């Protein structure tokens, strides 16, 4: 994205959705897609106005899964919210844990031991692989390929979830990270099992790609559909694989240097066109990069403590102040904004949900497209309703 290009664009309303006029034949049909439509990944509704097959208007409706996570967290001690962060994006509980732990560590100035950082990276990248595999599986499922690619993805996801279960005690609700470290240490047998699973991952991605990347139906349905311009993507706060598929080189692992990501060799895959196919491809390539990080982290994992020795478990009261911590979660930028008033509970606890904010541009991408493509565009955003509605 060149600066000059975006400068000339900034006339009034350049970042608003386009106005699509109906062609004047027939009547407009208003459809509520959801909240129980299987393609909406949960309870989400799109109020769509259709002119024939073409989408004229699209308004997302949220809140079916709203439980005011933020208010509950204000009434609980800092650590008591940790298991609840698992329930935000229940596909990626470990990255949710990390983002929250990172925000609290920024608030208190705690240090994380090296071994714990490595374990965090290993778990976060495993989470990324299984999330991307599953999200591609769901995308293809919505395209009409009932089952096969999704089952391939879930077979691999199952192996990773087994690793999570044997380490943390739970497949999806891991509740593993703590402020200043991790809850339990990894064992040698667990590391062996992880190495085995990681060694099998490249083959899985190859197989997945051989099945999908040049598939005629996938290419016909995805290429040139749901295009997102890079200037709009940045302005609308889109993050994660969706932003990079539009060609914007912005990966928080590279930008913020949080954790120990500086030590690993990996590249940031970028898209050219910003369509559904690029989003699919960026996710596939990110899986490959994650496997690279996993191999390096498993090779270099040092011995040592997994908790900050000075970490205070009881009577945890951060000094007054505030902190915003964010990480590159599989779905985008996941941030936690905390204000402390010196008490045992956060005064303000805010989750910056990547799923919700990435949906800002759903309308822009869908207008003028066929209604069947809206399902795919929506699927390519990759959301989890637990995080959208909180």
């Amino acid at each position, binding site marked *: *994205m060149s*600066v000059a290009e*975006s*400068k000339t664009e*900034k006339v*009034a309303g350049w*970042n*608003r959705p386009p106005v699509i006029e109906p062609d004047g034949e027939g009547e407009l049909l208003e459809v509520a897609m959801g909240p129980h439509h299987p393609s909406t990944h949960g309870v989400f509704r799109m109020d769509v106005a259709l002119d024939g097959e073409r989408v004229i208007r699209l308004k997302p409706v*949220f*809140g079916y899964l*709203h439980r*005011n996570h*933020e*208010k509950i967290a204000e009434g609980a001690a800092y650590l008591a919210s940790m298991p609840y962060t698992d329930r935000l994006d229940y596909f990626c509980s470990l990255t949710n844990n990390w983002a929250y732990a990172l925000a609290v560590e*920024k*608030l*208190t*100035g705690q240090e994380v031991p090296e071994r714990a950082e490595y374990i965090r990276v290993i778990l976060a990248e495993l989470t990324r692989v299984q999330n991307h595999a599953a999200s591609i599986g769901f995308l293809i499922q919505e395209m009409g390929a009932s089952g096969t690619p999704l089952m391939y993805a879930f077979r691999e996801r199952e192996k990773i979830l087994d690793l999570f279960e044997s380490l943390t005690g739970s497949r999806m609700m891991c509740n593993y990270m703590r402020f200043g470290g991790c809850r339990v240490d990894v064992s040698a047998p667990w590391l062996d099992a992880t190495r085995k699973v990681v060694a099998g991952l490249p083959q899985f991605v190859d197989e997945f790609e051989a099945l999908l990347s040049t598939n005629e139906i996938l290419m016909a349905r995805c290429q040139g559909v749901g295009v997102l311009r890079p200037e*709009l993507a*940045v*302005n*609308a*706060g*889109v*993050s994660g694989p969706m932003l990079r598929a539009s060609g*914007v080189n*912005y990966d928080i692992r590279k*930008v913020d240097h949080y954790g120990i990501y500086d030590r690993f060799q990996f590249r940031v895959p970028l898209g050219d066109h910003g369509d559904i196919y690029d989003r699919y491809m960026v996710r596939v390539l990110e899986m490959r990069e994650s496997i690279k990080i996993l191999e390096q982290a498993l090779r270099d994992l040092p011995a040592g403590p997994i908790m900050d020795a000075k970490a205070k478990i009881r009577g945890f009261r*951060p*000094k*007054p*102040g*505030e*902190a*915003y*911590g*964010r990480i590159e979660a599989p779905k985008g*930028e996941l*941030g936690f*904004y905390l*204000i*402390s008033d010196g008490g045992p509970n956060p*005064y*303000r606890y*805010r989750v*910056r949900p990547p799923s*919700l*904010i990435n*949906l*800002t*541009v759903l309308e822009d991408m869908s207008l003028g497209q066929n209604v069947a493509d809206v399902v795919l565009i929506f699927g390519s955003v990759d959301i989890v309703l637990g995080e959208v*509605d*909180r």
Partner: protein
Amino acid sequence: MKTVEEIKAAIEAGVPGAGVEFVSNPSPSAQHSLRLAPATALAVATFLRDDAELAFDFLSNVSGVDWPEKEISEKVKVTRTVTKTVDGSDGQKVEQPVEETVEETRKHTQPGCLEAVYHLYSVAKKHGPLVIRMRTANRTDHTDLPSLTPIWRAAEFQEREVFDLYGIIFTGHPDLRRLLMWEGFKDYPMRRDYVEPDDFEYEPTAHDEVLKRAQEHKSSEQPAEGSRDQGMTTG
């Protein structure tokens, strides 16, 4: 990245009369922030986005914060002059002014307000965060702030959420509706003084307090026309 003080100076040079205030953050994160005056916020935000060196083109996070009215009592040492009777030099009692230091508790109310906090980053320059915040005049009738959605589209849903849960009215927002709560919901759930709705409806075996409230509620509520219960009795 420039420090927050340097950014403040740059804003004051770029937008005359901006009225930006530096807010220090004592926590180890040291993410200091700038408080914008609502009147000039749009101009300052446009400057922050379009300035070639700052280039804060990515609005990451918008959050509301509720600061209710707070009574602060502080102890102040006051020196005052009191007249005391002391023994004079010639044995007589003489009244004489004496200075005395007393500790006094003073109470004052800090007015309440609602606050909107924005976290900005730059994708072009890869720096950040810059925290900017705005305060409403009070928590009751003047809860409006200028919307930054025209500048950063990322604020569209997040400002709707803050409006929904805190009741800050963002003027200039293209589509200000409730986001998470349903239409027709009255209160603002994230405010500190929010009272949760009565729970009698969800209590399977209502007793004591809850039963009393349930009965009060039943007697005050008129049965709705054509409700299911009526339909059942009339067949």
